[in-house]
C-alpha cells in the first residue's frame, strides 16, 4: 500500500515522467518573475515609499560623483586657461618667469589631493546612507507581508520560493530605485553647479565618458545593495513556521 511519504519519495527517485510531474512542487522562474513584478507595480505607492531609501541613498552617491566630475571639468578648463595665459605672457615677454608657473601648479596639486580625500569620504558616507536606507526598505517590505508569506507556505510554497520571490522583487526595486536616484542626484548637482557658475557650460566641460561610468556604477551598486540586504530578511521570513507567520498582526 502506498502512503504520502512513499509517494513523495517516489517523486524523487522515479524515472517515470508522469508521476514526476504529478508529484513535484515547483515555482517556474517565469511565474516567479510575473508575480514579483506585479507585486512591485501594483503597490506602486507602497513601492515608492519603500524604495525611498534606495532613491535617496543613490541620489546622494550620484550627486557626489557628478559634483566631482563637474569640478574636475571646471578645474581642467581653468588650468588650460591658465596655461594659455602663461604661454601668451611667455610669448610676449622675452624672459619668462618659470618659478611662478611652478608655484601655481603645486598649489593646484595640493588642492586636488585634499579634494579627492574629501570626495572619498563623501562616497563612503553615501554608501552608508544607501546601505541603511535599502536594508530598512527591504526589512519593511518583508515584515509587512509575513501573513502573505505564511499563506503561500500553506499553499505549498517551499522556503526557496519565498526567497526567490523576494529577491526578484528586491532586484526590480533596486534597479528602479537606483535609476531614479541616479537621475535625481545627477540632475540636481548639475543644477547646483549651473547656478553657482551662472552658466550651463559646466555640462560641456565635464568628461562624459567618466560621468557615464559613474552613473552606471550608481545603478549597479544600488541594485546589488538591494539584493544583498534583502537576503537576510527574506531567508528569515521564509524559514518561519507558517503558523507563526500567519499570526503576526501588521
Amino acid at each position, binding site marked *: 500500500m502506498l502512503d*504520502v511519504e512513499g509517494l513523495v519519495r517516489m517523486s524523487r527517485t522515479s524515472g517515470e515522467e508522469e508521476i514526476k510531474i504529478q508529484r513535484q512542487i515547483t515555482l517556474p522562474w517565469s511565474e516567479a518573475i510575473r508575480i514579483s513584478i506585479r507585486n512591485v507595480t501594483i503597490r506602486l505607492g507602497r513601492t515608492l515609499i519603500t524604495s525611498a531609501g534606495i532613491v535617496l541613498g543613490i541620489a546622494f552617491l550620484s550627486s557626489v560623483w557628478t559634483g566631482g566630475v563637474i569640478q574636475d571639468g571646471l578645474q581642467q578648463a581653468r588650468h588650460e586657461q591658465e596655461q594659455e595665459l602663461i604661454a601668451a605672457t611667455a610669448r610676449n615677454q622675452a624672459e619668462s618667469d618659470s618659478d611662478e608657473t611652478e608655484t601655481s601648479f603645486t598649489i593646484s596639486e595640493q588642492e586636488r589631493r585634499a579634494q579627492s580625500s574629501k570626495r572619498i569620504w563623501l562616497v563612503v558616507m553615501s554608501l552608508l546612507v544607501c546601505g541603511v536606507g535599502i536594508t530598512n526598505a527591504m526589512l519593511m517590505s518583508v515584515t509587512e507581508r509575513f501573513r502573505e508569506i505564511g*499563506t503561500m507556505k500553506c499553499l505549498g510554497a*517551499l*522556503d526557496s520560493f519565498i526567497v526567490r520571490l523576494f529577491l526578484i522583487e528586491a532586484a526590480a526595486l533596486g534597479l528602479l530605485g537606483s535609476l531614479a536616484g541616479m537621475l535625481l542626484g545627477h540632475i540636481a548637482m548639475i543644477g547646483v553647479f549651473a547656478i553657482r557658475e551662472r552658466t550651463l557650460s559646466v555640462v560641456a566641460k565635464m568628461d562624459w565618458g567618466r560621468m557615464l561610468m559613474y552613473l552606471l556604477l550608481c545603478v549597479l551598486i544600488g541594485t546589488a545593495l538591494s539584493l544583498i540586504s534583502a537576503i537576510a530578511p527574506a531567508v528569515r521570513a521564509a524559514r518561519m513556521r*507558517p503558523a507563526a507567520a500567519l499570526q503576526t498582526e501588521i
Partner: protein
Amino acid sequence: MAKIECPKCGEQIETTGIVTVCPKCGADLREVVEALGHERNERMKTIVRDDSVTTHEFIVRTRGLKKIYVMGEVEVLALRDINLDVRRGEYLSIMGPSGSGKSTLFNMIGGLDKPTAGRCFIEEVDMAQLDAFELAWLRCRKIGYIFQTFNLIPVMTAIENVTLPMIFAGMGTDEMMERGRELLTLVGLGDRLDHKPYELSGGQQQRVAVARALANSPAIVLADEPTGNLDLHTGKEIIDLLKELNQASGVTVISATHDLKMIDVSDRVVHIRDGQVERIEHRHEIELEVGGMGG
C-alpha cells in the same frame, strides 16, 4: 446560487434551490431545480475529488498531542493530550470557546506548527517524520486551508489566488486557468474571476478561499472559524457550501468554530476546553440538540 430558466415563460431566475415556483407565471420549477442540483452534484464530484491512492479509514489521527507556548518566563499550555481520530469523508466540527486551543490544534493537524509532544498522523504518516519538501507537498496537495481572515493574496485576482497552489503543483497554464474557472463557478463566482479581494464582499472572499482550498483536490479541508468574520446569513452559506462539497466529493472537512449555529451539518462535534477534549457528540445527538434549540 445559480440561474435557471422558467420552461413556461422563459424568465431568468436566480435561485439557491429554495424557490421552486416561477415568480412571473407561477409555473412549477421543481424539476428544473432538481436537475440543476443533480448537475451541480455531478460537477462537484468530478472537479473536487479526493484522489488519494490510500484508503486508510482514519485520515487524521492524533495521539497525546501537546503544545506549550513559551513566552519569556510564562508557559501557556494550549493543548494537553489530544487524542482524535477523524474518518475519511467525515464532516467534523471542533467547538470551543475562544482560547480553548482550536487554532493550535488546526495548526498541528495542518502541519503549520510542531507539537511539543505527541504525534499527528495524516493518512497514517507521522508528520514529525516529514522533511521540509514533504511538508510543502502535503500542504500543497493533501490539505486545503480556510482561515477566519480569508488570507487571500491582496494583489492577486480571484482566479490568480485560486491557481497559485496549482502553479506550485506544476500544473500547465491552460489546465490551470480552466480548473480555476470551474472552481470559482462552482462556488458561485464565475463572473468575478478578475476581481481583486478588496473588490469582493467578505462572503465572496471566503468563497474564493474555499475554491483555492480545493485547487489541488485535497483529501482534507481544514477551516479555522471560516464564518468568524461573516454575518450569520453569509456564514451559513459558507458552511452549506462546505457541507455540499463534503457530501458530493467525499472530501474530509474539519472546521473549528465557537458558534453553535454552525454545527448542525457536522457528522461529529468535538468539544474542547482548556486544550482538552471535553466530549464528542455524534450526528443524532446533535440533531436532537439543534432540534431542542429550535423548540
